[in-house]
C-alpha cells in the first residue's frame, strides 16, 4: 500500500528523500528554484527507515555539486533520485566532502574570509557526527546549526 505518494508523480526532476524530519525547509533554502520548477514537500511523513522523514520533489530540476554538498551538511543521510519520464534513472546518497570550499561562510567575524578578499571560504571536515568543520584560515570550528545558518 503506497501511502507516501499522496503527491502526483513527476515526469522529470529530482527527489530528495530521507531528510531528517523538520529540515526540509532548510534544504529548500539553499536550492535555487526557477520558474518552471514546481515543488512538492512532504514534512514528517512516515518512513520505514527513519520513522519520520521529510521529502522534497522538484520538477525539471537537477542538482549541482555545490547544492548536493550543502544538502549533505543539512541532511547527511539524504538520498537523491533522478527522475526521467516518470522513472528513477539514477539514485545515490549525498556525501560529506572532506574539504568544504566556497559554500559555507565562516562564523568568525574576524576571519580574513569575511573581509571582501577574493577567496573562497575553506573548511576541513572534522567529524560527521556531530557535524563539525574547521576553517582553514582562522582555525575556528563550527558545528551543526551554526553550519546550517551559514550555508
Amino acid at each position, binding site marked *: 500500500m503506497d501511502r507516501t505518494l499522496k503527491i502526483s508523480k513527476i515526469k522529470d526532476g529530482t527527489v530528495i528523500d530521507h531528510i531528517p524530519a523538520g529540515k526540509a525547509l532548510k534544504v529548500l533554502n539553499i536550492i535555487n528554484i526557477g520558474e518552471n520548477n514546481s515543488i512538492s514537500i512532504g514534512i514528517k511523513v512516515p518512513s520505514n527507515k527513519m520513522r519520520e522523514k521529510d521529502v522534497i520533489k522538484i520538477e525539471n530540476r537537477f542538482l549541482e555539486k555545490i547544492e548536493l554538498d550543502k544538502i549533505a551538511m543539512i541532511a547527511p543521510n539524504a538520498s537523491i533520485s533522478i527522475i526521467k519520464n516518470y522513472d528513477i534513472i539514477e539514485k545515490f546518497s549525498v556525501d560529506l566532502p572532506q574539504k568544504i570550499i566556497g559554500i559555507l561562510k565562516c562564523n568568525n567575524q*574576524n576571519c*580574513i*574570509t569575511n573581509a*571582501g*578578499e*577574493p577567496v573562497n571560504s575553506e573548511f576541513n571536515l572534522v567529524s560527521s557526527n556531530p557535524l563539525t568543520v574547521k*576553517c582553514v*584560515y582562522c*582555525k575556528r570550528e563550527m558545528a551543526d546549526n551554526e553550519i546550517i545558518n551559514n550555508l
Partner: protein
Amino acid sequence: MLKNKSLISVSDLDKGDIEDIFEKADYMYQNMNNMRQNEPMKLKILSTLFYEPSTRTRLSFESAMERLGGSVISMADSKTSSFSKGETLADTIRIVESYSDIIVIRHPLEGAALLASRFSSKPVINAGDGSGEHPTQTLVDLYTIKKELGDIENKEITIIGDLKYGRTVHSLLLALTRYHVKINLVSPANLKLPDYVYKEIKNKLDVNIIDDIEQSIKQSDVLYITRIQKERFTDKNEYYKLIGSYKITKKEVEKMKENSIIMHPLPRIDEIDVEVDFMKKAKYFKQASYGIPIRMALISMIAGD
C-alpha cells in the same frame, strides 16, 4: 627544509625544524658582528607590511635583515598608506611580492597571513594575525627557555594573564605540545583560553587551569606573564581591581624556586612591577634580545641561497 617556505603557524614546524632554527640562531648569536661583513643576505630585500601597530616585532625583523646585510622596505603607517585605501590584501601582496624576496606581515584579521602566502610566490612570515598566531614570537619564547634553563623538556610553565585574545599564548601552547611539559593557566574569568585552542592542546599537554597562583609561583620553572589590556574591560575599576591580584612584585619573585625565570612578550604595562626588572629571574628583556638571532636564523634559512 624551510627554504622558500612560508611560516604561518607553529604547526608548520616539527621538533626537528625548531632544533635546526635554534642551532642556526646560536650561530647568529655568536657571530652577530661578523654577519654584517659576510652579508649573507646581500641584494635581498625584506618587506614588512604591518597593518597593526608594532614596535618590537617590526624593529627586530628590520634589525635582523640589516645585520644579515640585506635591505628592508616597509609599508608606511597602514592608515595613510595607499595600500590600505580599499585595496584587498590579495592585491597588495601580488604587488609587493615583486618588490621583495621575503614578506613579513602583521594583520588584525585571523588567517590574513595564510591568505597572503597563497597570493605570493615569495615566502611570507606571519608576524601576528588577529588573535590567531605569532609563530616567530613563539620561537623566541622557546629559545629563551632553552638558553636560560638549558632545556624545554620536563619544565613546569605557568602562563598568566590574557589567555583569550593573546595570540602569543595560543602559538606558544600549540608549540609546547611538541614537548613534555606541565602547563598551568591562570586568567581572569573573562579572558580564559578559548575552547578552540584548549581542544587543540588538551590531549597533548598536561594542562591545568588553576585559581591558586600562589602554589604555581612556588613550583614553576617559568612564569610567563602576558599583558592584560585595559580595553578589554568596560568597567575600568574592574581592571584595576584585577591587575592588583595578577601583578608580579618582588614579594612573589622571592617565593619562586631557584633557577626559575620570568618571561613576558612585552610591552609590559602594570603586570610586572618595575622593581622586579633588576632581579636575576627577570628575563623579559633578554627574551626580547633573542628576537634578533632567531629572526636572523629564520630569514637566512627561508630566503637564503
